[in-house]
Every structure is written in structure tokens, then in C-alpha cells.
């Protein structure tokens, strides 16, 4: 195996276009899979030498978060946790303190697990990935990147440089919850991200709901978002939200949970997550 640390996106793309190349960001999934011989890359391309993958920048349109920025760095950012607390909490549920010191949003997404914690957080926030490749730069909403377990919409030579997170709406809030049988260091049985916005009268003007670990890819559940828009997010709206979340689930049976259990939990969890997002939106 060869290790390369390019400092430009062009050099990284050229290396990644070759056979058997893998991106190294935090390495918390890649190195484990290399040791288990699930992956045997010929060349590992460390993208952390490219400045744009390591920065968080903020302007009037929102945040640009480098794909290799770690969960710990997201948490330490002076304003990100105020604007997008759900996203930061989701990223900081990945593994241990040690893992959070390395694991990144780009890696969590591109590892291609339907149970990735930060992905529903990104989708709910309306994050759009900036992808560079041999043909230049393109953008893709996060919900369109993972196609199936370990399968991404990225082509040879492409990698994610950063994510654009929109500015938080005036009365906006987000939240992420996951169900696990213990309190820490586990993989989501169901994960749920919700972001919503209210007008001055408290009526919901926009809502995005994302579910993880209940299908072959993290889902943007549009019907669940629609259940809230135009309402005061009252009990009737939350009941519709719950039903829409359950209806979207196509989970598998595995050691973490049965189909029936996951579908049931997804509804309950979505309502709880929406209530936290709502409370946050009302406070700002």
C-alpha cells in the first residue's frame, strides 16, 4: 500500500482516479476495515493536507464545513452548536471521545453505513456536499449521496471536499436522537434528524425529517416534513408525522432490532426529535 498526502484537490483527484485508491480522512472506519481485510487499497489518499477539508467557515449564507473536520472540532466551534445543535450532537454520538477526535462528517457519510449517526443530521439540516473530481466540481444534496450500503453516487476520482449547511432560519431548530440499548458507544437501531422553521406566529414554515438505520440508505422523509408544515406542530400534526415516519421505513431484521421494532421505534423517536427541534426553534 502507498500513502499519499496531496495538498491540492487536483492532485487528490488524480490519485483517486487510479485503481484501488481510498480516501483517508479520520481513518476510524478505513483503518478498521483494512485490518479486517475487508478493504485492501493500493493507495490511501490522505485528504487532510487540503486546507478546504479541514476548515469551518461561516458567512451570511451559512457554514461550509470541511469533509475531514472532526466531531470534536465541530463541538468546539464557537457558533455551530448554537445554530445547528442537532448536527453537532449527531456527529458527537459517533464512537468514543477518542473516535470523535478523528472521525469526520465526510468519512461517516462515505463509509456508506445506513446507520451513520451524522447523516440524518446533515440531511435534516439541508446539507449539500461539494464534490470534486476529474471533470471539475459539482454539488449534491447529502440525501442523494448514499445509494445502498457501501455504495455511493461518487464516481472514480471524486471525493467530498466540504458540506454547505444553510444559515439557520430566524426561528429554526434541529435535533438528532438515536435509539440504542445502552447510553454510549453503540450503533443506531434507529436514528432520526429533524430540522424545522417557524414564522413569528409559531406556524411551521419548513421541516425536514431524516431517518437512519431503517432502510438501505439514510432517508429524507418528505411526507413527514409535510405533516408539520402549516401547523403549530400540535398533537394532530405530530400524529401525522409519526405515521409518515413509520410508513417510510423499510428496515432489515438483524441483531440490533426486528423490522417490527424498528418501524415502531422510528415513529416514537421522530416525534421526540421533532419536539426537541420545536423547542429549540421557539427559543430563537
Amino acid at each position, binding site marked *: 500500500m502507498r*500513502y499519499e498526502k496531496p495538498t491540492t484537490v487536483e492532485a487528490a483527484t488524480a490519485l483517486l482516479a487510479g485503481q484501488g485508491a481510498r480516501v483517508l480522512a479520520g481513518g476510524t472506519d478505513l*483503518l478498521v476495515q483494512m*485490518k479486517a481485510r475487508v478493504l485492501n487499497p493500493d493507495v490511501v489518499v*490522505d485528504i487532510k493536507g487540503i486546507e478546504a477539508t479541514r476548515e469551518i467557515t461561516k458567512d451570511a449564507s451559512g457554514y461550509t464545513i470541511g469533509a475531514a473536520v*472532526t466531531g470534536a472540532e465541530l463541538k468546539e466551534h464557537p457558533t455551530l452548536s448554537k445554530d445547528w445543535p442537532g448536527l453537532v450532537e449527531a456527529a458527537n454520538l459517533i464512537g*468514543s*471521545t477518542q473516535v470523535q*477526535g478523528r472521525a469526520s462528517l465526510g468519512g461517516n457519510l462515505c463509509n456508506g453505513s445506513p446507520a451513520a449517526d451524522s447523516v440524518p443530521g446533515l440531511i435534516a439540516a439541508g446539507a449539500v456536499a461539494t464534490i470534486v473530481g476529474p471533470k471539475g466540481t459539482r454539488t449534491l444534496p447529502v440525501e442523494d449521496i448514499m445509494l445502498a450500503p457501501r455504495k455511493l453516487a461518487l464516481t472514480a476520482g471524486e471525493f467530498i471536499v466540504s458540506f454547505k449547511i444553510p444559515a439557520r432560519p430566524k426561528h429554526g431548530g434541529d435535533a438528532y436522537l438515536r435509539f440504542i440499548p445502552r447510553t454510549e458507544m453503540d450503533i443506531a437501531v434507529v436514528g432520526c434528524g429533524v430540522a424545522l422553521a417557524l414564522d413569528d406566529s409559531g406556524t411551521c414554515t419548513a421541516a425536514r425529517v431524516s431517518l437512519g438505520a431503517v432502510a438501505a440508505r439514510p432517508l429524507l422523509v418528505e411526507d413527514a416534513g409535510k405533516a408539520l408544515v402549516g401547523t403549530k406542530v400540535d398533537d394532530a400534526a405530530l400524529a401525522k408525522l409519526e405515521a409518515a415516519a413509520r410508513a417510510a421505513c423499510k428496515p432489515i431484521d438483524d441483531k440490533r432490532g426486528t423490522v417490527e421494532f424498528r418501524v415502531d421505534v422510528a415513529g416514537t423517536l421522530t416525534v421526540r426529535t421533532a419536539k426537541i427541534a420545536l423547542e429549540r426553534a421557539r427559543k430563537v
Partner: protein
Amino acid sequence: MAKHHVTTTVNGDPVEYLCDSEQTLLDCLRDELDLIGAKEGCSSGDCGACSVLIDGRLVCSCLILGVEAEGKKVETIEGMAQGDELHPLQRKFLEHAALQCGICTPGVLIAAKALLAKNPDPTETQVRYWLAGNLCRCTGYDKIVRAVMDAAAEMRGA
């Protein structure tokens, strides 16, 4: 494939080593630099026995390539005591009998040091969550948590 020539700082000392691309930082510390305090437990980032600090950040050295340490500041358990004088955390671990077999202990101490650098007055819950990635199969954690809380109090001058 030629080896990588890595120049880095370990516990304040400039060091150089040669490593293969596949070698982890843990391999390099143990096999190239004879710093065998960091332990190999799971090799998958679950147990925390290999915990070290890189540029002050707590990480698992088994999940970092040795070559990635180039130009960084690495801190291991070997740098924790000053000569014969133990770090307060080390002293409190002895006083509270917060270890038995000792395999997890270097990682726990490094992780606790990182916590206290960030938060000198953690609650018990914060200590438990922070150390969730450091598995101990002997103590049941209670003595570890008490030792960390006690060391924190001493270090605050409480």
C-alpha cells in the same frame, strides 16, 4: 516500497523513525520507538488501551497511520510522570487502587489527563461519558472514576 521517514515530537523530544505505510502510530511507538506504555487491545478503536494525545487531542493510536504523525506533537503515558514524581492522576490511581491488571491504565490515564485539561471540574457523569471509550475488565470503573474525581479536586487546589 520505500519506508516513510517521519519526524515528529514525542513527549517533548524530537524523534525520527522509519515506517511502512500500513504501520499504525501504535506500531511505531511500540516497535520503532520502544514506547510500550500504549497497549494494543482491540485494534479497532473500541477499547482505548492505545490512547495517546496528538496536538493535545485524545485519539486511538491504533487508528492512525504512523506516517500521519509527521510534524505533530505526540504525548504518551511515558511523558506523564516528571522523573520520579508521578502525575496527580497516577498517584490517585494508586491510592484508590483504580487498577488491577493494568492493561487499560495507560490509556485511561491519558484520556483522563485530556479531560482535566479541557474541564478541570468535571461531574461524575462527565467523567463516565468521557471515559466510555476506555474499557476496563477488572475494576468495574468505580475506582477509576473516584480516582479521576479526586485527582481533579487536588489539581484544582480544592
